[in-house]
């Protein structure tokens, strides 16, 4: 089979889409959040055990009782902090996942085999994703800032803030 330049470019886009998708899935499968939850749960269980053991022989060792009380109070605070850290980390992972998913969708569109038939009116075959189309996929302001910075390097002043709705509401998208 002869590989034309267009076929080669589509292949590159398809490969890049698959590679970015793999990065997205690694981000999504990161174990940090789970480890923070398990640590918080373990600390809570240990704290309950300390309370239970203290109750079995109250007053036997006042100094140890005092230390147990301090440890239980510290555990509650640390567990709350771990839960908060996990919550923020989960959101950061979600932002990264959605940003990567946006790149995957754009590359998949560029790699579409029936690209020539998909060209919008007024655009040549192969021009399947305009900067505006790309901007419609964005999920956060960071992406728009990067877009605008790159556009300025090309001497283009068109802002990425477009009002095209439903750019991402596509069947079957997302992991």
């Amino acid at each position, binding site marked *: 089979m002869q590989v034309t330049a267009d076929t080669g470019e589509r292949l590159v886009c398809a490969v890049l889409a698959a590679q970015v998708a793999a990065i997205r899935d690694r981000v*999504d499968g990161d174990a940090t*959040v789970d480890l923070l*939850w398990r640590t918080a749960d373990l600390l809570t269980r240990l704290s309950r055990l300390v309370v239970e053991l203290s109750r079995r022989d109250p007053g036997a060792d006042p100094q140890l009782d005092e230390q147990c009380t301090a440890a239980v109070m510290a555990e509650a605070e640390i567990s709350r902090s771990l*839960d*908060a850290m*996990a*919550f*923020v980390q*989960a*959101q*950061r*992972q*979600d*932002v990264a*996942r*959605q*940003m990567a998913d946006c790149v995957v969708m754009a590359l998949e569109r560029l790699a579409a085999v029936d690209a020539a038939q998909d060209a919008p009116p007024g655009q040549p075959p192969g021009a399947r994703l305009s900067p505006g189309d790309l901007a419609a996929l964005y*999920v*956060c*302001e960071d992406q*728009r800032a990067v877009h605008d910075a790159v556009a300025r390097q090309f001497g283009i002043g068109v802002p990425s*803030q477009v*009002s095209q*709705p*439903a750019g*991402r*509401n*596509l*069947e*079957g*998208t*997302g992991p």
Partner: protein
Amino acid sequence: MPAILILDDSATMVMSLSRILKNAGYDVETAANGRDGMAKITGGLKPCVILTDLNMPHMDGIAFIKEARRNPSTRFTPILMLTTESAANKREEARAAGASGWLSKPTQPSDLLTTLKQLLPSK
């Protein structure tokens, strides 16, 4: 007590939100997108508040809010968006659709719980 309905296509986010809300004493129901959320509502679920992502497959957050506002059981239910987006035009779009509030990711648990309490004065 009626549950808080969480809509997010990220399983990690759903688990994380559920954990924070359950630890704060709320009951929780979950859905993976707007379509699943509406299925729960039409199936009889009457949440006290709805917490939804914006970008989801099958039915996104804005489309979900419009559907929910057409449903008699959720017409006046507070709906809080928790999303990666912070763009003013997206916020306005959500407000026009019927969103009650908006938080941008990442947010702190304390900010989420404070906002929920404002939406639920009896809690």
